[in-house]
């Protein structure tokens, strides 16, 4: 399977945060979700890929090319949507588009007009007069109008209402029907990825915890719910992130045999959603303490 993006042994240290030797790859033709709680390193990773931050060490290749040596060529083939609006607020949608469009070799005005129509964006309205949802849609229209092969999205759906979020996810789903494209979708709203992601990479405290297909991830994990007394057995060591209450416990496990043993002992096993997996993995230390 050909990779559209590869990150190898990437390191970046700040005074209060370290991105620690992370490696992952994005296969072509799929949507890869990049999950993790706030402050875990998602935006830092994306900024390193986009060369907005300088890496301390490691290697990043996009379309098989070094991301710095071939920066312009690569960025011509990347569409990006960030979590915040970085457009000039005083400009109209049309003026901002004109500035950006002039930079792309493969800008497709017809495509842009079609997205503008689909999204109901007023070309003559100032950016500052657009709602948060409209600004994201404008970003998306720009990102999709120059035949980008890789879409990099950093928390694009945060702060949006469910209707707009759903519209955006539908568009991404359509984009990925072209098997030569790839989407790297960073979010902490994991329910979006439950719907559309093929692969999931989880980052926590600057380290990659896993990089797997979503189906495999959901399949190999189980949520175990049972009485507290079951925690006194040696099965406890198989649990990831334990949530206790006076009525019992809830935890995640990726040990199929342990899950079966818990069920035999009177616990209940359920299939997790991505949010469960993220929450239990990040709760690990407290739960086991």
């Amino acid at each position: 399977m050909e990779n559209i993006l590869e990150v190898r042994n990437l390191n970046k240290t700040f005074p209060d945060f370290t991105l620690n030797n992370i490696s992952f790859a994005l296969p072509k033709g799929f949507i890869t979700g990049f999950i993790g709680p706030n402050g875990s390193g998602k935006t830092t990773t994306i900024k390193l890929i986009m060369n907005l931050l300088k890496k301390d060490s490691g290697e990043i290749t996009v379309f098989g090319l070094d991301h710095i040596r071939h920066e312009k060529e690569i960025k011509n083939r990347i569409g990006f949507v960030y979590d915040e609006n970085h457009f000039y607020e005083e400009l109209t949608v049309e003026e901002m588009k004109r500035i950006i469009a002039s930079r792309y070799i493969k800008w497709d005005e017809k495509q842009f007009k079609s997205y503008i129509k689909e999204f109901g964006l007023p070309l003559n309205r100032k950016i500052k007069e657009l709602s948060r949802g409209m600004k994201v849609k404008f970003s998306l229209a720009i990102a999709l109008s120059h035949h980008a092969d890789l879409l990099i999205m950093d928390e694009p759906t945060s702060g949006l209402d469910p209707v707009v979020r759903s519209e955006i996810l539908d568009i991404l789903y359509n984009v990925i029907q072209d098997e030569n494209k790839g989407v790297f979708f960073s979010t902490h709203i994991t329910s979006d990825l439950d719907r559309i992601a093929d692969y999931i990479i989880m980052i926590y405290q600057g380290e990659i915890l896993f990089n797997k297909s979503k189906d495999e991830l959901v399949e190999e994990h189980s949520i175990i719910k049972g009485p507290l007394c079951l925690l006194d057995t040696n099965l406890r060591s198989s649990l990831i992130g334990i949530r206790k209450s006076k009525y019992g416990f809830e935890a995640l496990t990726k040990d199929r045999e342990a899950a079966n043993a818990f069920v035999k002992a009177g616990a209940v096993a359920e299939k997790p959603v991505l949010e469960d997996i993220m929450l239990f993995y990040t709760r690990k230390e407290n739960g086991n303490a």
Partner: protein
Amino acid sequence: MLNLILKDILIQKKTLGFVGLYILILSIAFQSIGAGAFIGIIIAVTYQLVVTAGSHEDKAGADIIMNSLPLSRREIVISKYLSVIAYGLLAVLGYMAFSLVINLIPISVKISPITPENMALAFTGIMVMNSIYYPVYFKAGYVKSRIISFILYFVFFFGLMALFGVMNINGTGAMLNTVTGLLSGMNKVQFFLILTGGTLIFTLGSCILSIKFYNGREF
């Protein structure tokens, strides 16, 4: 590149609307300094446009979007230096339009003439001033460099005013002759060649430094 310069102008449409009013106020304020008024006004208007553009860039977090586009940091820096020339030309155009209006209406505001000598000195002023400012801007960003731009503006602006006061100049020819007279044995052409060449070398050096600083910036 042209689009980046147009962008720098477009983002301050509102400010451009005030340029005429700004020139009127400055013209009234600088009536006593004769030929130096034109140079002072061009420097003041250009300073205003440079600062306003920086403020809009900072407010939008434009470094992030500009550096995510297929655009090298070198192009971004060079476009900023070229924008200074565009701002200077806009200021001259504004001044010309203002002069025209003043000549048409019965109002007693003394207009300082636009001469090649004045133009050369005004553009030298804005290029040197911004060539000192931009390396700081590209190294530290708009917010941290604001104080430097403010100091530079006052040094250049009031420095020039003081210089013209000392020279007691009233006419443009007199001003140039006084300046050239200081450089004994040098004619006007030689003077302008040295002025332009010196400014060009200084600006080029500043631009190279700015590119180096901006290449190391993180957003």
